Every structure is written in C-alpha cells, then in structure tokens.
C-alpha cells in the first residue's frame, strides 16, 4: 500500500491556536460537520444537560486523541480502527464511571447517550483525521477545540429549547408565573425544529459573513 503523502498544505502550517479554534467555528462538529447529531437532539432539554453532554464528549475526545497520538506508531494499519475503537470505548467507560460516581444526577439525565459517545462519528473521525497523524499536544488541543465547539452548540440549542419550552434558563425560571411556555420545544419535534432553524440561521450568517 502506498504511503499517504504528506502535503505541505494548510494543516501542517497551522498554529496550535488554529488547531484549537478550528473545531469551534470553521469545523464546528454540529453545525458544519453535522456529526454526532443524536445527542444534539436528545438531551438538549436543559442548559445543564447540554453543557454536561458536551463536556463529557470533550473529555472523551481529549483523552482518546492523546492516547491515539501516543500509540500511533505501534498500530498496524489493518487493526487501526479496532484499536481506535478499543481506546475510545475505554475512555468512554472511564468517563461514564467517573460521572456515575461524582455527578450522578447528570449521569441519570444523559442516560444511554453517554455510552453512545463511542459511536459518535466525531470521536472516531478526529482520531482518523487528526490524532493519527499529529503530535500529542496538537491532538489534545484539537480534541479540546472540537469538544468545546460541540459543547457550545449543544448548550446553545439547550438554552433555546429550555427558554422556549420550559420558560427557564439553566433551570432558573425566567417567565412570570401564569405564562405558559411552549411545551413543544422540549418535546421531540422541538428538538428537530430548534436544530433545524438554528442551522438555517447559522447558514445565513455564514453566507453573510463569508465564513
């Protein structure tokens, strides 16, 4: 098999800062890459959940990126994916156990979506596209950037849904008693709708500011 040729292109010359910000805006996992959409829809019912899920994913991303970039030279190509999965699954399990121990309420709220981080294409995608090729520090930054990007979008969607659907902001009620929030927004249709409309807005902004 031919070795991939490293192109003296954009990525190589990217500064560490760029690695970091890349995931937040230019390759935002949710609004640009559209990866790992299940949690984006499922758990964004309160700001805390969104934020917690984002952070959990970020932890896994950073951890797995670090491990993979450390081990990258000892992995035969053919078992690459299998090893990645092992590593990622382990990181996820670790995060799972830690959350169970120290943030049990959040763990309950996120439920099955914590173990499902394993299949979030984002994590594997970063392993493949980045950690496999780059150094430990850059990989960690990349994971962190992506994780933060993911967290920001999750939190954003959660906030919108929580305010519209529950009338509260991070569980603090913000609409006067007696007024009704629009329940739809914390129910399944609201998840799709909020994401869809925010997506359209993002696209419009992107077009306007030519990002």
């Amino acid at each position: 098999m031919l070795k991939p040729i490293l192109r003296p292109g954009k990525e190589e010359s990217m500064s560490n800062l760029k690695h970091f910000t890349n995931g937040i805006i230019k390759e935002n996992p949710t609004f640009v890459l559209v990866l790992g959409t299940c949690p984006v829809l499922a758990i964004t019912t309160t700001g805390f959940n969104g934020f917690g899920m984002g952070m959990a994913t970020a932890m896994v991303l950073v951890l797995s990126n670090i491990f993979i970039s450390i081990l990258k030279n000892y992995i035969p190509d053919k078992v690459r994916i299998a090893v990645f999965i092992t590593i990622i699954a382990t990181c996820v399990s670790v995060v799972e156990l830690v959350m169970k121990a120290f943030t049990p309420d959040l763990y309950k709220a996120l439920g099955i979506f914590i173990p499902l981080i394993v299949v979030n294409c984002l994590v594997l995608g970063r392993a493949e596209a980045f950690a496999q090729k780059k150094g430990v520090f850059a990989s960690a930054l990349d994971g962190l950037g992506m994780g933060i990007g993911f967290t920001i979008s999750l939190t954003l969607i959660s906030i919108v849904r929580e305010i519209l659907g529950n009338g509260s902001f991070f569980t603090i009620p913000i609409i006067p008693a007696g007024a009704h929030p629009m329940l739809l927004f914390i129910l399944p249709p609201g998840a799709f709708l909020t994401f869809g409309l925010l997506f359209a807005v993002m696209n419009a902004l992107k077009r306007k500011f030519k990002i």
Partner: protein
Amino acid sequence: MDYIKIIILAIIVNNIILSQFLGICSFLGVTGKVSTAIGMGAAVTFVISMGNAITHLIQTYILIPYHIEFLQTITFIFVVAFLVQIVEIIVKKSVPTLYQALGIYLPLITTNCATLAVALLAVQNHYNLVQSVVYAIAIGIGYTLAMVLMAGIREQMEINGYPKGMRGFPMTLVIGSLLAMAFMGFSGLVK
C-alpha cells in the same frame, strides 16, 4: 400480548428516530432516495437483530457472571463492528452479486448509534433473548419506516424545489420535526 406491546411501542410510539433520537445521522444523511432508505433500513434491521442476540448472550453468560458489566460498552461495540464485518464476508462469499447489490450499506451501520443503543436498551429493559430479538426487529422496522417516509418526502422536495436558505440539513430537520409532531399522535397507544 407482551410481544405485541413491545412491537407497537418500538415501531411507532417510541419510534427510534422520531422519539428516541437514535440513528439521526443516517436519518439526515442517507434519506435522499427511497431505495437507499429501504436498503439501509433492511441492513440495520438485520444487524441489530443479530447483534441483540449476541450481546444478550454475552451479557448473561459472560459479563454478569464475572461481574465485569463495566466492559459492556466495549464488548457491545466490538460485537456490532465485527458482526458487520462478518456479515459482509458471509454475504460476499455466498452470493457475490448479492453483496454487490447492497454491500454499501453495511459499513455505514457501525457508526450508527442506533445499533449500539438497541443492544444497550434491550439489556436495560431486562428483556429475555426472544424479547430482545423481537424488540430489535421492531426497532428496525420503525427505523425503516421513518427513513422511508423521510426519503419519500425529500425526493418530492427535490422535484418541487424549496427555499435556498433551507437547503440540506435545515429542511431535513424541519421535516423531521413535523414528522415527530405527527407521530406524537401515537402516544399512549400502548400503556
């Protein structure tokens, strides 16, 4: 009666895509054409029903007896990943043309979180082996239903045209929202 309950719940009331939000990536990604959606749906159904049987056995005969349930995530994902590979080999070995006709959908399944989730949910719900498999098949049917509906709608949208600003994901998501809304009519169908 129990089985009917599991089936109706899994197909419509708690539709995996429209009310549980699993497998959304494929719902957004591979619903461009009805034929694709059917192929993907069938492949997913097949893999998750096999997968559920195997994970159920692993759970009851290995993980629980040795108290290593914390390996659940790792073992299950391996089961799914390798099941896909093996099915691919088997189909290819037995009838290559068959494999050519639909082999493409298999690899996509591994990164579909529905596959892993169904295995985990079946364990969480304490289903026995048969229930677990029936559940998986029903989930698969519900998955296919949602996929096909979406694909039909998107095909029509392509012909009709729709606003530029909504092109791609936003439109798909709004349609998903209205579908989910319609499906809420099924809530409470089985108690």
